[in-house]
């Protein structure tokens, strides 16, 4: 369908003028959104953007390199705790702290990448799962991390704290713009990365690692690099998340969170940046808004309350989001293994060849 005539056409960031146009429109809409939305929705948007960063990073690992990770909540936690603690104890500016925390996460990603060289499938799943649990446990135990009580994020200071250059930003709207810029940069970065030599090496490992090795792709370097890059994204996302919610404890970063991250990229479409973005947005919206107060939905809500009265418990209806997410996960794999990206491809194909 899309014929590529030379290399430069293949590595172009925007394949056509239409995509460029709609990307710019999307960006303008995103910049204008806070003027039209009530403040709770800005908070929701912030969480969505944080999850977009994480999903894009996770997609580099799972969708492009073909490794499995059930421990991304661990990297997320390292980012969140790292940024806040560095700012609190070392009094560094926000961006420095964020980068340092993300690099720490990337280092842990590299460490986890080492056993991943020899493991695959279920064995890799258990190794990463163990890593996520270990991080959660260590944070919960050590006093410096605030223990089980959790910690409150310090004021978000973009300048140098405690001097005349201090520039504290407060409120969801200002944080929104900060996160939006970062998300934009990181998504473009990921898209670019996938068009370079490194990105192609990742994809060749996913398609067949033995063939990739024979062709001269250094598995040791690229597999660990994939883990490190993915963990770096998770670290940045975690650092921003800390300031979005303002308060967090070790139990926020549990196994269910890692599973939900996986759901985001599977629903969106593995191996597609825009898929990860839409998947993260959709799942976060479902989880934080639509399914949170399911009894207020028209028709479905009253029906569910009646069912609850008769066979279940009304108080347990809060668990409905788990049921819905579980069903979505199963349905996606059964009916649309490529996720929303697959649906999009099909629609596009249909219209391009219309009326045939």
């Amino acid at each position, binding site marked *: 369908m899309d014929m590529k005539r030379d290399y430069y056409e293949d590595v172009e960031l925007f394949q056509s003028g239409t995509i460029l146009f709609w990307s710019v429109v999307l960006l303008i809409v995103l910049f204008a959104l806070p003027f039209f939305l009530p403040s709770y929705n800005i908070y929701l948007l912030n969480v969505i953007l944080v999850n977009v960063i994480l999903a894009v990073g996770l997609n580099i690992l799972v969708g492009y390199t073909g490794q499995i990770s059930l421990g991304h909540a661990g990297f997320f936690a390292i980012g969140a705790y790292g940024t806040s603690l560095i700012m609190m104890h070392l009094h560094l500016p926000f961006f420095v702290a964020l980068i340092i925390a993300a690099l720490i996460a990337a280092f842990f990603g590299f460490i986890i990448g080492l056993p991943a060289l020899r493991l695959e499938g279920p064995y890799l799943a258990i190794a990463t799962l163990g890593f996520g649990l270990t991080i959660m446990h260590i944070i919960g135990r050590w006093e410096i991390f605030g223990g089980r009580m959790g910690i409150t994020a310090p004021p978000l200071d973009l300048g140098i704290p405690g001097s005349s250059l201090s520039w504290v930003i407060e409120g969801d709207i200002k944080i929104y713009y900060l996160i939006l810029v970062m998300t934009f940069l990181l998504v473009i970065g990921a898209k670019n990365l996938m068009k370079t030599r490194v990105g192609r090496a990742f994809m060749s490992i996913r398609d067949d690692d033995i063939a990739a090795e024979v062709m001269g792709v250094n598995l040791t370097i690229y597999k660990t690099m994939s883990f490190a890059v993915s963990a770096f994204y998770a670290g940045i996302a975690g650092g921003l998340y800390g300031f979005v919610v303002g308060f967090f404890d070790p139990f926020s970063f549990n196994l269910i969170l890692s599973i939900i991250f996986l759901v985001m990229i599977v629903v969106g479409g593995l191996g597609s940046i825009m898929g990860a973005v839409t998947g993260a947005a959709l799942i976060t919206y479902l989880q934080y808004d639509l399914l949170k107060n399911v009894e207020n939905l028209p028709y479905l809500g009253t029906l569910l309350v009646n069912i609850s009265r008769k066979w279940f418990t009304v108080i347990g209806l809060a668990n409905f989001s788990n049921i819905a997410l*579980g069903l979505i996960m199963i349905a996606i*794999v059964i009916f649309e293994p490529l996720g929303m990206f697959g649906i999009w491809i099909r629609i596009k194909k249909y219209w391009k060849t219309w009326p045939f």
Partner: protein
Amino acid sequence: MFEQLLIEGVAIGACYGLFGVAVAIIYKTSDVINFAQGEMGMVATFVAYHILTVYGLPFWIAFPATMVFAILLGMAIEFCFLRPAKDPNVLGLLIITLGAEMLLMGLAGWKWGSEQKDFPFLLSVHKNVEILGLSVNEWTVGVFTLSIAIMIFLFLFFRYSRLGIAMRATQQNVNAAKIMGIKVERVFSITWAMSSFIGAIAAMFFAARSVLDPNFMMEPFMRAFAAAVLGGLTSIPGVVVGGLLMGIIENIFGYAWPEWKPIVAFVVIIIIITVRPSGLFSKHFVKKV
């Protein structure tokens, strides 16, 4: 003191082994890691709890009824969720079982609420009996006998029975098994039923030891899964030995550093599978191009 720790470790390890065997059976036949195993056991335990407390029926009715429910649940999950998936890869299967896990957890929370309950089990942790001069509780005796019996049964089953051989054939090559006249779909169904059955028994033992709530199988499942990986997922005796090792390591290290008890096992597992990627007892398959 050391003997006591060892016995407790062996007992909880036998329980991990039993549950790990449930995971391993499914992996052996269909190459699926069933992340919903813990929640399948959890729902079955809740059904037993419901029969025992709400209907007030005695244990000898509740137990067989629960087992029938567990078997049907296992078959239903295989039939509804895994069979329709066309040509899924490892990640797709993982996502399906994770989805089933969240679904079952949500349903149990919806039905029974999330507060913790005591599970009235036949064998108590608090009643002790004397065996060979050592005082051990009933629960330990029960779990140990049962897991040894099930392990011996499964070992013989996979080695000598027609169905067991059919299961092994299915694992090696689905298409070749079909050509040989094995009804592969029926084999999968029976596998899931067996696994759910064993998992439900193990889950009841876990519930008797701790409390009953929709999350209670999460930790034991991960330990059991880790134990199964440690022993090598394809060998049933390996899984049991892995479970025992896991229980002993956890109990002895946990006694020395109680704070780190929940994660000591995972650290050991990560180290061991880094050195031996397919676990301690399974043959390492060299990948063919």
